[in-house]
């Protein structure tokens, strides 16, 4: 009996259909139509004017957009160069087999990521409040000369955002690193030690090459997540913050699309962000291939 008689030719399509239909209606169609939207100015579907590439040209000349790009880049850099090394450091510490209470430490470091960004933003708002905040109250105890109403959230917008996200995500990323560290071939580690390698050399020449693919993946996830930053500054600062120092690309997209109602411009911002992320993913893949080869 031929295979076609058991499984009709259309059978695979039938099984794929739910996904294909849903993907087409809710992902592919909106995605493609958003390209058209980014070339228009609209007031609802019934009223639109084609403006060609004007939305993109305006975006390039828009100083607020570049402020948003700068802020997002700074936050991303903070995630990459502060948060990930700390996450890796925690993972290396917790990967030591003789450490007592490892499971508890894992839970403690991971647990902040169980709460939402809204909670984290509210919590840090209370900690950093000028007059009633925990930080100023604690500083007043140990350092009486310190200004009692120091405006942390106004002076240090980006460090506050990076600190809040560090508290939330360092433990989460630690889990990826921990999983990767547990796959490192211990015979290689032992061999390196027998050959006289110290802890740094073992990490540099054995551990790091083994966890590099996972590290690249974590870094890519971290960049994508950072580029989509919105809720944390929106709640912690109540908007873009002083001198728009908390304005991110997605917040600017939201402001234009849903507060001002300029959907075409918002679509253009979305596509610039999407193209950047696609480019970044391609670069990461190329680098990873090169590293593996």
């Amino acid at each position, binding site marked *: 009996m031929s295979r076609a008689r058991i499984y009709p030719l259309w059978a695979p399509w039938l099984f794929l259909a739910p996904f294909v239909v849903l993907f087409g209606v809710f992902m592919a169609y909106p995605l493609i139509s958003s390209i058209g939207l980014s070339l228009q100015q609209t007031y609802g579907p019934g009223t639109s004017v084609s403006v060609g590439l004007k939305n993109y040209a305006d975006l390039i000349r828009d100083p607020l957009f570049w402020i948003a790009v700068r802020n997002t880049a700074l936050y991303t850099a903070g995630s990459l160069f502060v948060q990930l090394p700390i996450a890796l450091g925690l993972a290396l510490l917790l990967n030591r087999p003789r450490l007592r209470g490892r499971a508890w430490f894992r839970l403690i470091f991971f647990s902040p990521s169980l709460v939402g960004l809204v909670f984290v933003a509210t919590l840090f708002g209370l900690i950093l409040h000028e007059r*009633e905040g925990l930080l100023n109250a604690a500083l007043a105890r140990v350092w009486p000369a310190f200004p*009692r109403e120091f405006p942390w959230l106004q002076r240090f917008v980006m460090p506050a955002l990076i600190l809040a996200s560090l508290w939330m995500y360092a433990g989460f990323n630690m889990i990826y690193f921990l999983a990767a560290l547990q796959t490192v071939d211990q015979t290689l580690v032992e061999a390196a030690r027998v050959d006289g390698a110290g802890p740094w050399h073992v990490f540099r020449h054995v551990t790091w090459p083994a966890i590099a693919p996972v590290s690249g993946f974590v870094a890519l996830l971290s960049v994508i997540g950072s580029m989509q930053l919105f809720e944390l500054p929106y709640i912690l600062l*109540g908007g873009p913050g002083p001198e728009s120092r908390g304005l991110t690309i997605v917040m600017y997209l939201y402001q234009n699309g849903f507060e001002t109602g300029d959907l075409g411009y918002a679509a253009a911002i979305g596509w610039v962000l999407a193209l950047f992320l696609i480019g970044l993913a391609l670069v990461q893949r190329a680098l990873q291939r090169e590293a593996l080869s």
Partner: protein
Amino acid sequence: MAVALRPRPMRPDLLMWTFARPHQEMYAPVLAAWNAEPDRPKAESLLLTTDALQRRLLSGFLSGTPLPDLVEVHGGIIAQIFRGPIDRIGFLDLTDRLRESGVIDMLNPPSLSPWTTRGRIYGLPHDVHPVLLGYRADLIEAAGIDLTQIETWDELIRVLRPLMADADGDGLPDRYLLNIWETNPELIDVLLLQAGGGLFDERERLIISSDLNAEALATIVSWTTGTNRIAINAPEFDAAGNRLRLEGVVLCSLLPDWLAGAWQLDLPQLAGKVKLMPLPAWRPGGRRTSVMGGTMLGLPREGRDIERAWTLAQELYLNREVARRLYREAGIVTAVRAFWDDPIFDEPNPFFSGQPAGRLYIDQAPHVPVRSSSPYHRLALAALGDAAMALKMQAEQHRLSAPSQLKPLARALLAQAEQRVRRQMNRNVFFQIEEPTP
């Protein structure tokens, strides 16, 4: 599937959306009386959250999804609706109806401005929302200070400043005179409007960088920094802000009638400790009030029975009993001038130390400044906030605290803010405002 297949409730002949439960409860007796009349279509109200109402309303206007026959909206929603070309605005233009029926003469004229764009009126105003100064009478009068003869901000600050002493020796003033901060552009806008400035003029043209605004902003920022500091940041509806109010750390607040109503519900500990007075003016003889917030009732253009919806709208908003309940339950003064003589507004209010709060608000109601309904108001507010924060930083960096020192900087920063908003406004091909020729 079960949800999709369940039988749909019958839609009433006239459906009204509102976003506030107290409003819905106030309208219930009027709707019951309306429905009791045999020849009238059945009317019902539906309560939606602000976000749900906004999304469904915009979807209806822009994409043709089902809409009610009447809908209550606040200023934050109306801005997006007014973004488009005048002939595509989803609300019915009520200008001619208001004039022909004489209803326009019953209403407080400045209260129509937030619901007007390009000279056309799209809603019946629900309220006036004049702003008074709420102050801690218990603390101020205990110090032997009488505010009844105070006329200007300068006088108020002069007589209250002694209360900022650090009696408890913790290195901080025990009290601050006013709740305002450079991070709160909404409150700054209230004071700019009072000063005769604001973000837009009556014809929706940008006036952020006006001289009046520069002067007022320089003064406000001077209140937040250096030796001139008299202000503190005590946000409303916020635990830390309420604590500052309850502990008497903040002595005076800008208090629109709706916020006065909210204080009575949220801060009962302040009952009998607070009094109201007209805002001190920026200069002798100047305006003693401002305005903050607002709601309107509009009729979607595609409504099924416009004429009956218009009749119901008038019964709801031009109803003395609704106006009385609005004041009694929410502390809000109606925009219908004919009801301002109602004795309810003269009743002593125990929360405000026995003052007739309603009458105090009504005395100022005709003088509230005219506001714009510009769809770019929010953007302009954000730009104003940025300018205020930048001015404060520069003031601290260069140790400037006198308003005269800050004014040139304020003017330059407001000019930048205006340029930023104008750039966005100029992008909108549907919303073109005639600018004055230089």
